[in-house]
């Protein structure tokens, strides 16, 4: 018999109610998609994987759309719209969480915006020349008033762009490694405190980013009736498979390490995984969200399948992967708050619906980046033909 039905065993009073809600689950999920999409883009730009070139611009726009929305769950969680934006104004080195402003603004302004601008400059200039009225004014403002597309200027753009991407890769690693670090560095919480956390977050970010861009690319070509570049899709799926294998191996390494080390927290965490996290971790994350998509991707690598079958398997695997990575974030964030630091009790997460941190705002925050991406794709079409004067590029 317990007086608090949601609590089992002994909880300290400040542990009964979860302070980090589903919105804090969304934050690493969104930033992971940003980092993953950017790293996919850099495959073509820096590592010269030409097969994924058709998704280069789409990946960059996806990264931007998700990055623009990424702080929103944090601000909704903080409440106080009159002062929550101060996290951008007063970043500080004193704690990992206070560094958010530096990490976020660096990645947004020094990497993504510059790279996208340089990539789209010929298109912006072309539009500014070809349109009239307000549209022209808009695109002319985006060109910053310079319509120089001389071969030399484009060569400079290319070099600067590559330099920005080279900085961008460690920045993308920093962005998501940082998110993992926030959890991994909480030494009072044995579910989080592991130096592997930033690396696991990073690889799962790459996995989720590739899966997201793969789905967006499939949807975009279908919606726009553009012929799908099958070698590109095959290459993305191959990278998704490889990245996922590394990610899964790292998570298994973490698991094996925990089981073998079996420190004083082990029985508590083991019990939690087998009871309260059974559905979301064992069934959702590991079976449906990891083993099944890995199996589907392995099938496409081992057996010669028709284009139609491959497309179906890729789409299914990518969708399940996203579910799995979301559940991984869920199990980290929510799981880390379900057990007592006394190791003697467990609480329950009760998700609200139409409240500031409920399910409804979480769904809206998840859909918002897709709306932003829709707008970005309309303004900066990723498959637009290169203007004739830049064909030499």
């Amino acid at each position, binding site marked *: 018999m317990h007086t608090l039905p949601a609590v089992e065993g002994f909880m300290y009073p400040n542990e009964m109610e979860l302070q980090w809600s589903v919105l804090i689950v969304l934050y690493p999920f969104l930033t992971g998609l940003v980092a993953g999409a950017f790293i996919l883009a850099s495959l073509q730009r820096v590592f010269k994987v030409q097969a994924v070139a058709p998704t280069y611009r789409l990946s960059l726009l996806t990264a931007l759309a998700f990055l623009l929305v990424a702080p929103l769950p944090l601000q909704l969680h903080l409440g106080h719209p009159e002062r929550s934006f101060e996290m951008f104004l007063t970043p500080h080195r004193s704690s990992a969480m206070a560094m958010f402003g530096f990490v976020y603004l660096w990645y947004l302004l020094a990497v993504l915006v510059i790279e996208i601008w340089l990539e789209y400059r010929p298109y912006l200039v072309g539009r500014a020349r070809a349109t009239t009225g307000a549209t022209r004014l808009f695109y002319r403002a985006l060109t910053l008033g310079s319509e120089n597309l001389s071969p030399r*200027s484009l060569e400079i753009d290319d070099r600067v762009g590559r330099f920005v991407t080279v900085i961008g890769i460690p920045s993308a690693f920093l962005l998501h490694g940082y998110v993992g670090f926030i959890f991994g560095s909480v030494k009072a919480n044995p579910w989080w405190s592991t130096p592997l956390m930033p690396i696991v977050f990073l690889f799962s970010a790459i996995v989720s980013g590739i899966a997201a861009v793969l789905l967006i690319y499939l949807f975009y070509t279908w919606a726009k009736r553009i012929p799908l570049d099958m070698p590109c899709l095959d290459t993305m799926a191959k990278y998704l498979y490889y990245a996922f294998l590394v990610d899964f191996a790292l998570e298994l390494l973490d698991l094996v390490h925990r089981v073998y080390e079996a420190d004083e927290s082990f029985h508590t965490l083991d019990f939690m995984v087998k009871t309260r996290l059974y559905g979301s971790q064992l069934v959702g994350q590991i079976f449906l969200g990891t083993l099944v998509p890995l199996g589907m991707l392995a099938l496409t690598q081992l057996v010669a399948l028709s284009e139609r079958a491959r497309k179906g398997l890729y789409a299914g695997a990518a969708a399940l992967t996203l579910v799995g990575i979301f559940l991984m974030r869920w199990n980290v964030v929510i799981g880390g708050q379900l057990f007592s630091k006394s190791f003697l009790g467990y609480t329950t997460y009760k998700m609200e619906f139409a409240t500031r941190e409920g399910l409804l705002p979480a769904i809206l925050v998840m859909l918002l980046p897709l709306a932003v991406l829709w707008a970005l794709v309309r303004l900066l079409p990723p498959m637009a033909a290169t203007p004739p004067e830049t064909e030499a590029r």
Partner: protein
Amino acid sequence: MRELLRDAEHLIRLGLLFAAGLLVFLVVRAQLVPAGFGELGHFRAGAIGANQEREPRFAGRAACAECHGEPAESLAAGGHAAISCESCHGALAAHAAEPAEIPGFAATARALCVQCHAMNRARPAGHPQVEPVSHAEGAACTDCHDAHAPGL
């Protein structure tokens, strides 16, 4: 050099735009960051004074003992000595300030006692615990127990 400047003109414009953006950011930041921020640490120094100015909601044990001497003495002598009056009776600074106008709170609800005395195997073995549903079937705990000097 001149040609290079011409061909990199758009980048110079971008650099200037960023510089302008940075300037705007710094100006906005100077305006929005509250006065006194950072003086004592990464927070607004005035927040300490603002918190000190708030009215306390708890009166404290000594204030209770001024009028309720007998229960206060019996509490201090018994097994609940470490528990403050207002742990069970609620925050009563307002009552202590105006005892005639604002009533106190008689703490007789079972829910209060079972917070510490409901059966829970995670509690220390010697701690008195009961099954709240079957124990004394719905009677007030204070019918049999004196909360100030616990025991039967």
